[in-house]
């Protein structure tokens, strides 16, 4: 089976290309890990959106709402379990984080279910209305967050054992970033296994290419839609928590702020491709960190430049999928 290795190879290529620009090798290591960690978190936030679009042909502009809601849900749990978070034991920290992550995924997933049934179902097939309606949903949810959790930004300190950095030789690597990379890899591995090795995954991959044909083969794929949407929303919630702890604060607008980066990542990756989303996210994360060090003024715009470069090379993204 021939896999297209070129896009994946871009990640190490970019990392290596940055070496001459960052003369201090330990700094390069730190930045690379930071970039990978950021990329993993963006991947978690974006993967649901690209899969939903690929499978259901729905662009959910309210995806940012799931990110914010997940972060807030987790924040509530973590604040309640402050003691465990501040304890110096990893076990205690994890015992607080685990329910927080679950709460984030559950609430985001629930919101996703509500969205699919009530907000999006009436406008399947009408892209214009989808864009408008989901934008409206984003506004409303953001406001509701204010109603429930108040208007202020909530600080969210990292768990005690995951603050600070670890020294590998001369390179300082933040503990939290290592966790982010691990979680991201775990999520990606899980998605890869489900999509590649299960019949469910097979149906989803086939459905992304040609929903009609899957139905003609006798599968009620529309029933899958809700499930995929909910899973995508839950993932966004998870990404939201991880990101919030990275920033050490939760704000209602954080989801909306990420939308531009998320769009850039899924466009780079190819709409509908989870693998593409992964590669795209890592590239964006690395770029942001390298450029942020080398030329800070360009950092914010570097993503967009990366997107333009990728589109010039492959107009439909790194891994184009069936539906044009």
């Amino acid at each position, binding site marked *: 089976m021939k896999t297209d290795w070129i896009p994946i190879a871009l990640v190490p290529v970019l990392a290596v290309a940055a070496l001459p620009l960052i003369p201090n090798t330990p700094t390069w290591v730190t930045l690379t890990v930071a970039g990978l960690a950021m990329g993993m978190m963006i991947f978690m936030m974006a993967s649901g959106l690209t899969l939903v679009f690929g499978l259901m042909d729905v*662009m959910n502009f309210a995806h940012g709402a799931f990110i914010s809601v997940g972060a807030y849900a987790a924040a509530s749990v973590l604040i309640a379990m402050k003691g465990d978070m501040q304890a110096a034991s990893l076990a205690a920290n994890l015992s607080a984080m685990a329910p927080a992550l679950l709460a984030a995924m559950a609430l985001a997933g629930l919101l996703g279910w509500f969205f699919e049934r009530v907000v999006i179902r009436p406008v399947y097939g009408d892209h214009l209305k989808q864009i408008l309606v989901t934008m409206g949903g984003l506004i409303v949810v953001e406001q509701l967050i204010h109603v429930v959790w108040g208007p202020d930004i909530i600080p969210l300190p990292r768990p005690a054992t995951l603050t600070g950095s670890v020294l590998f030789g001369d390179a300082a690597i933040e503990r939290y970033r290592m966790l982010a990379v691990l979680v991201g890899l775990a999520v990606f591995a899980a998605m890869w296994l489900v999509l590649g090795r299960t019949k469910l995954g097979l149906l989803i991959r086939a459905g992304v290419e040609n929903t009609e044909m899957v139905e003609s083969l006798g599968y009620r794929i529309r029933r899958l839609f809700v499930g995929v949407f909910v899973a995508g929303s839950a993932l966004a919630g998870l990404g939201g928590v991880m990101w919030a702890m990275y920033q050490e604060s939760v704000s209602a607008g954080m989801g909306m702020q990420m939308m531009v980066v998320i769009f850039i990542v899924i466009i780079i990756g190819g709409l509908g491709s989870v693998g593409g989303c992964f590669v795209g996210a890592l590239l964006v994360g690395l770029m942001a960190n390298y450029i942020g060090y080398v030329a800070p003024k360009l950092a914010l715009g570097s993503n967009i430049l990366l997107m333009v470069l990728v589109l010039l090379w492959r107009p439909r993204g790194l891994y184009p999928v069936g539906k044009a």
Partner: protein
Amino acid sequence: MNWLLSGDYPRSRVLAALLILVFVGLALAPFVFPGTRALNVAAKVAVFILLVASYDLLLGYTGIVSFAHTMFFGIGGYGIGIAAAKLGPTWINLGLGIFVSSLVTLALALAIGLLSLRVRAIFFAMITLAVASFFQILASQLSDFTGGEDGINFKLPELLQSRLVCYYGVLVISCLLYLVLLRIVNSPFGRVLQSIRENEFRAEALGYRTVAYRSVANCLGAFAATAAGALYALWLRYTGPDTTLSFSIMIDLLLMVVIGGMGTMYGAVIGATLFVVAQNYLQDLMKLAADATQALPSFLQFVPGLLHPDRWLLWLGVLFIVCVYYFPAGIVGRLRR
């Protein structure tokens, strides 16, 4: 009257009455509504009527969802701002600023139009979002040129220094440009746009080069937005990222055009007036309501939260969603039934 309105009548008594009310209100604002706040609201209404109308040309008449409209609004504002601040507040310099803004707008509108009108609507929407975001970053990073996050404060030529003259200048020009847009959508060109929106394949089959038409529509809408931006900057004597480029303004635009009524032009008048007035005065009303409901029993304690004045956007958002589902032609459409 027929010539003035380009044959596009309100077609509803209530709507006509509302339009006249708005027009009279704006025309007599300095005298009827005392105070600087009221005049500010009126000026903002005048500017936004034009801006929303320009967006309706794109969204309502051509069926294009673009998130880059605030970029053109900003170009107009910065054109005036940079010219006035760097070159001096003379009429010639302002004219130069407008001229340069127009060129930049033309270039960007053409680029966006030709590049992305060939791709699917969703892709186009996302790209415009990225472009607008990039522009916003540019504006805040090139602070020597654009004043960065703080924006640019500047003085106006002597004639415009009178608030009254400035106000009527803004109102008259906004009115004229609005009528031009009205003329455009009711012209043969406008009718072709509508047919493209209805059924692109058919229009192509009939021989209309749809990409060309949509590109022109894109440019016209962008120009009008730039003009609105220039007017707004003149009124505020200030231009900056949050008055012109922020994403919340883009969202406000969407709300205004949909609630007012897409594809009606008059919807812009209703939507802009409703929104700007609500933005400024609804909050006072909501505060009253919130205070009144403070005494509710504990299980209804979320009610004051929902009525808190800062949550006015929540209600407009809900209204917006309701409009998209049930009133695709917004308030104007409802009134015309």
